[in-house]
Each structure stands twice: as structure tokens, then as C-alpha cells.
């Protein structure tokens, strides 16, 4: 290998991480508060929900699909959790289990639409996205759900969010590490191990690479594809549970923007370590990088309307890097 080749390989592998490191140092030099320990956790906390959604989405990207319904699944989970706690007055554990079951169910519906009815993934999940967005409004009559809300039948809702449930979103370990961040990191490790170190992960990737070849080595391709969507829905509902516990109220507008942020993080992840494919580590790094940039730039008084632009720039640059430069090696 020539020296030039070595250089470009190094750049492809570590280029993105170098950009992350340079941004980290640069933002801290301009605004020292950026480097403080609590602020690091602030950044992580800020990206938690959509990073979790992106981790679920990674499964569907790995099998060469895409799940557009993760954002609305999370939003629906917020409403469902609020309904369970505030209106149905269920326990925290029962609420969590109900929400997870709902998420998995939505994933199963997606999987069946795509695998059995052969609806293209984008269209099927776009359809369920709208469906869920509408569905979540029905139980509460289109209203936000909070303690004391007037139910459609005129009664007042008496339940409230239990402290245990709220701890999932607002608690802190050692008064420092927010619980959602722990969930995110744990989930990232699990997804990483499953995708990179288990035979199931290998088969997921094989299906994404060449589904017919995977079928001909004996993989139950249809079953794996359905499972990918179930995992996506299930993980989206984990994100939704944390969102519900953070917001503490069934707010109708909770899910806005989650989908795009999650898709962005997963796609940015392609560029990390020159992977050129969806991967758990890249997804988390992508999510944290965007969160870090926005945190730092907000500290420098960047107006809110610049945020989407910055995200777009990072995403386009990462995609150009992944598909343009890295492909030529």
C-alpha cells in the first residue's frame, strides 16, 4: 500500500471522529462552560430520545428497509402512557409493559404489511405513521392528557404519573447521570452486541446485503424482516416511555421532529469509522455529535432557526463522505 493510500484509509476510518473531536475542543475554547461535566450530561440527555429511536431504526436500515413510523410510535407511546397512568390509573410497571407491547404491535403490523402484503417499506410505514398520529388522539378526544383534564364524558381524570415512572425520565443517578442517558447507553451496547457479535445480527446484515443469497443459505428472511420492524417499534416505544416520563404529560405535540432527527442520526452513523453501513456505534456517535453541535452553538447564542440548517449540513456532509469519498477506496 502506498503512503497516500494509507493516509486516505486513515482519513476514511477516523475522519468523522476527528471532526467530532475538533468540534468538541473548538466549542469549549470559545465557551468554557461547554466543557463542564454537567453540560456533557446535558448534551447526552438532549439526544436521548431520538438516539434511542435511531437505534431501533438501525435494525430496519440494516435489512435495507426504513421505518418512518418511529417518531409517531414514540408520540403515541407518550399519549398511551399518559392515558394508562392518568385516566386508567394503572401502575408504573403495567404502564411500561402496555407501552412496550403497543410498540411491538405497531412494529408487527409494519412487518406484516411489508413482508406479507409486499407494500414497499417507505409507503407502508408512512401509512402507519399517519394512522398512529390519528389514533393517538382518539382516546383523549384530541386533548392533551394531564391530571385534572376533563374527559370526553365530562368527568375529571384523577390519576397522575407515579414517581417511579417519572424517575425513568427525570431521575438522576448519583445526582449526576440522568436515567434516560443510562437507558440510551445500555440500549446502544445491546444493539451493538446483537448486530456485531451475534449470528442474528450477521443474518440481518446478510439480508440487507443480498436477501436472495441470505435465503439460499437457509435464513428465514421474512421472519427476520418482521423481527427487524418489531424491534424498531419496540425500541421506539422505549423512547416514547422516556419522553413521556420527561414531559410528564400526554402532550399532543410531543413527537414533532423526532423522526427526522432519528433518521438523521442513523444516516450520519454510516460515516463513523468508515463503516458505510448502518451500525449501532455510528448511530450513537451521530446523534451525540448533532446534539453537541446544537448545545455548543446555542450557548454561543445561535438563534433557534439555525438548528435545522446545521443538522442538514452535518447530514449532507456525512452522506457525501460515506457515499462519495469512502466508496472509492
Amino acid at each position: 500500500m502506498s503512503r497516500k493510500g494509507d493516509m486516505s484509509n486513515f482519513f476514511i476510518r477516523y475522519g468523522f471522529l476527528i471532526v467530532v473531536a475538533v468540534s468538541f475542543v473548538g466549542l469549549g475554547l470559545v465557551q468554557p462552560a461547554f466543557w463542564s461535566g454537567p453540560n456533557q450530561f446535558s448534551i447526552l440527555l438532549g439526544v436521548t430520545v431520538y438516539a434511542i429511536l435511531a437505534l431501533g431504526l438501525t435494525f430496519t436500515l440494516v435489512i435495507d428497509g426504513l421505518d418512518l413510523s418511529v417518531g409517531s410510535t414514540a408520540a403515541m407511546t407518550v399519549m398511551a402512557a399518559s392515558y394508562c397512568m392518568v385516566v386508567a390509573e394503572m401502575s408504573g410497571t403495567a404502564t411500561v409493559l402496555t407501552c412496550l407491547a403497543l410498540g411491538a404491535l405497531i412494529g408487527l403490523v409494519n412487518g406484516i404489511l411489508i413482508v406479507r402484503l409486499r407494500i414497499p417499506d417507505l409507503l407502508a410505514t408512512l401509512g402507519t405513521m399517519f394512522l398512529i398520529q390519528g389514533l393517538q388522539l382518539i382516546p383523549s378526544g384530541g386533548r392533551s392528557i394531564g391530571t385534572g383534564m376533563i374527559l370526553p364524558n365530562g368527568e375529571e381524570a384523577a390519576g397522575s404519573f407515579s414517581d417511579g415512572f417519572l424517575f425513568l425520565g427525570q431521575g438522576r443517578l448519583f445526582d449526576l447521570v440522568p436515567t434516560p442517558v443510562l437507558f440510551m447507553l445500555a440500549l446502544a451496547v445491546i444493539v451493538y452486541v446483537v448486530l456485531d457479535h451475534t449470528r442474528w445480527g450477521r443474518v440481518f446484515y446478510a439480508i440487507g446485503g443480498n436477501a436472495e443469497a441470505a435465503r439460499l443459505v437457509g435464513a428465514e428472511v421474512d421472519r427476520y424482516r418482521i423481527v427487524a420492524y418489531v424491534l424498531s417499534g419496540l425500541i421506539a416505544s422505549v423512547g416514547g416511555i422516556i419522553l413521556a416520563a420527561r414531559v410528564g404529560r400526554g402532550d399532543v405535540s410531543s413527537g414533532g421532529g423526532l423522526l427526522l432527527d432519528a433518521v438523521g442520526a442513523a444516516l450520519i452513523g454510516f460515516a463513523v469509522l468508515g463503516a458505510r453501513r448502518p451500525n449501532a456505534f455510528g448511530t450513537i456517535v451521530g446523534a451525540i455529535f448533532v446534539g453537541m453541535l446544537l448545545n455548543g452553538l446555542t450557548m454561543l447564542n445561535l438563534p433557534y432557526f439555525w438548528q435545522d440548517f446545521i443538522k442538514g449540513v452535518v447530514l449532507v456532509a456525512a452522506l457525501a463522505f460515506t457515499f462519495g469519498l469512502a466508496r472509492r477506496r
Partner: protein
Amino acid sequence: MTAVSVRDIGKRFGPTVALHGVSFDFNPGEIFALVGANGAGKSTLIKIICGYYPDYDGEILVDGKPVRFSSPHEAYRNGIATVHQLIDQGVVPNMTIAENLALAELLVGEGAPFFYRPQQIARRAAEIAARMGLDHLDLDMQVADLAQSDRQLIAIARALATDPKLLILDEPTSSLSEREADRLFSRLDRLRREGVAILYVSHRLHEIERIADRVGVIRDGRFGGLLQAPFKVTEIVTAMVGDLDRAEDRVAVVPDQSGAPRLELRDLVVMPGAPPLNLVARAGEIVGVTGLIGAGKSELAQCLFGLRQPVSGQILVDGSPVASASAAQAIGNGIFLVPEDRAANAVIPEFTIRHNITLPFLRDFGALFSWSGLIRHDAEKRAAMRMIGAMGVKCDGESAEIGSLSGGNQQKVVVARWLVKPSRVLLLDEPYQGIDIRSRHDINAHLRANCRDRAVIVFAADLDEILEVADRVVVLNHGAVAGQQLVGAIDRRQLVHWAAQAPQSREKGRAAV
């Protein structure tokens, strides 16, 4: 005066030479059939003539003048009109017949008018239709509502609208019924009388016997012969599959037929209307199954591997009947398959060599507890290294991406995948497609070395490929065994006869109908 000639056309893809320099003349008023086995280089030649591969050796002459096409569009402008195999690529289903006929000239072509003028289109479409004899069609009908043969005729009519020097028909009957094909042939007769030069590509040798004036044969990327009408199908087949007088390397080999029967097929009907098929394959032997396209080779392989359900009959492995509803079940029954068309069916392009090799049997590299699904990477790596060494895969180590390998080495990896674990029966469907001789020998040597406990069945259309590896040659024709010979007692003439005889002439065939 020839309309179009090709001179010494050569083409290589990386290290693989697809064409070694072939020359043909295509004359006006003549149907020239081009034949060759799969991978012989036929489609490469066609693609060069119609401009898909601008990078080739040799030259193309149109009306005696040398030309060089850099794109299909340029070839089209120079009078090369092509109707491709898939009809629906040639017509726009949701437009009317008239619009389809006038598409090139009046809707998207250079100098097409800015405004859509229905009368102009209708007039021009009527002219084109009249010439092609499409009088039976209402030109305002949607193409989507038409029969396949009519769509085919429309695609051809449109190709002819510009008065091309050469009309290329690539497998035009592949999706037509016999009657539809007959209708097409009568139009082609008419075009021939009008002086059109037609290059006709087909696997269906009986059609070629019926309509072609001359037949050009390509074999292993070289000129394989030129035949004048009238000709017999057996002559064409002989030219396609090889030189009858070629010396047999393995004449002296006496195959071992003492192994226990591994695979037994009892009255297996692999496709509707086919006669029952009976075959036994023993441990330690390599059976070569050959036959023309459509003879049922692929169907048989698919039935054995659970990708297709046989119409009737039994499959026995080690004496007990098995029924596989999927590849996974077939693998569970001890039947492994190296599928045809490596790129489409076998290679996972983004994977490393190691990951490609170990994919079917990841469970064997499990760590700790199998329920954890965790993979022991070191064991996996050792297995991959062992297979790379055994198969002689030339690569930069087990972690190189499979895309970095040549076709032959990729094929070795794909074969190696199925030798990691013992099987009862190993099937290889066209395993030599697009690979070099060296890789072929490596693969064969390895199959031979590893066939002790398994029955190996190689499916290939090319007789020479089969003769190189097989202990026994089985010829399929119309879904059943037409005959078989042991290596050492090979009579090529007989093999060719078995492969080429019309199905009706065989007693078994008649009995089944």
C-alpha cells in the same frame, strides 16, 4: 452487400476474457441466429453491437463504414435497433398503441414537436402499424390491455419505424406461447422479404431451425462455427457444446460406484407436464447433470433444495423420504446448494470473505450458550482461514471484502461456504459461470477431495465442464433423464443426441402426456 459486420470483436472484464475476437456478417433480407451456451459471450457481443459497452477491441462496420458507438442511443441513430428480452422494457404499458409507436419520433426523439398533436401521432402510428401488419389492433387501445405477442409486435414495429440497418431481437419468444410465437415468425418472414437484416438470439433451437437462414455459434468466447440452412438441431448443439473429436482426458478413469446411495429420486416430476424422473447419487461420486436450457436442470436443483415443490414423486436422502419447503429445511435435511448466478444469489457484497464463508453455519461458532447467539470470532476466523487455504482463494486475508476478489475467487468462497460442514448431498448449479479455468480446476479438485461421504451433483449446460469433473453424466431433456453414461465410456454423439432430440420423439415423453 452486408448491412452490418463485426470484425474481431474482443472484450475483457478485468482478468476474465469474455470474447476472444469474433467476426460475423449480417445481410439484408436474412435472419441470422446467434447461439451459444450460457456464458459463452453471446450477450456480451449483442451488448457491444448495440452500444452498451463502448470499450471493446475490433470494429463494427455499418454499410461498410467503420463506426464506434459510445452509447445505446448512438447505436440506435446509426441504424441498430434492438428489442430486448423483457417486453415491458420496450413498451410503455399505460400509453396507447399509437403513442407507443410514435414515441421515439414524435414524443421524445430529437426534433419532436413541442406540442402534443394527436392527429400527427395517429397518422404516423397508422403508417408504422400498416407496415408491420398490425391491422388487427385498435391503435387507441392501451398497451396494458394487449396480449404479450402484440406487445412484442409493437416493440418490434417501433424499432422498425426508423428503417434500421439491423434489427436485433434478443430472446423475443421467451414470454410468448407457441401460437403467439408462430404469429411473430410469420411477421419476421414478411420483414425478411422486405429486405430487413435481422439478428435473432434465442435458446430455442427448434425456432432457429424453423426461421433462421444462417446460424452463428459462439463457444467459450470464440467463433464456434457458421451453419447454413437447412440445418439440424443436433448440428447446432454439437457446435455449441464442443468439439466431438476432442481427446478425453479422463477416459481411463474407472468411477467408483460402490458408495451407499445418498440421494434417490423416485418418479419425481419437477415441472408440470414433464415425465417422471428417476436418479440415484452415491456417496463418493460426482454426478454431472446437463441438458439444454429448459430441460429442467434448474427446476430439479430447485426441487431438491426446497425452492420449488415437485409436482409428484419422492426424494430420499439415505433411504428416508424428505420434503423441504424452504432452503432452511433442505439444509436441515443435509442437502446444500451452490446456486447459479453468484452475484444475484450467493455473494453478500458488503461482507468480508470470512463472513461470506461462515454465513450458513454461524450456529457452529457459538460462544458460551447457544441461546446468547454470540459468535466466537476466533473460531470463525480459523474456519475461514482453513477454507481459504484449502480452496486456494487468492486474497489479502480473511477480512478482505469479497468484492475485492476476482470472479473465480469469489466462486471459490461461495463453494467453500458449503464445505465447512459435512452434507449428505451437495448440489452445484452452473458453478463455473464467468470464472477462469484455474479456478475451475481448483474447485473441481476440492470437490473431488471432499466427496468421500457425500454425493455431489454438478448442473451445467456446457458438456465439457461436466466431463471435466463428473464420474457419471446424466442428460436431462424435458424434465426427465434422457440417458446417462459413466466417465470412461463417454459417447458425445449420443449425449448430444439425448440433449437435442425433440421431446415428442421420446417414448417416455409420449407416455407421460
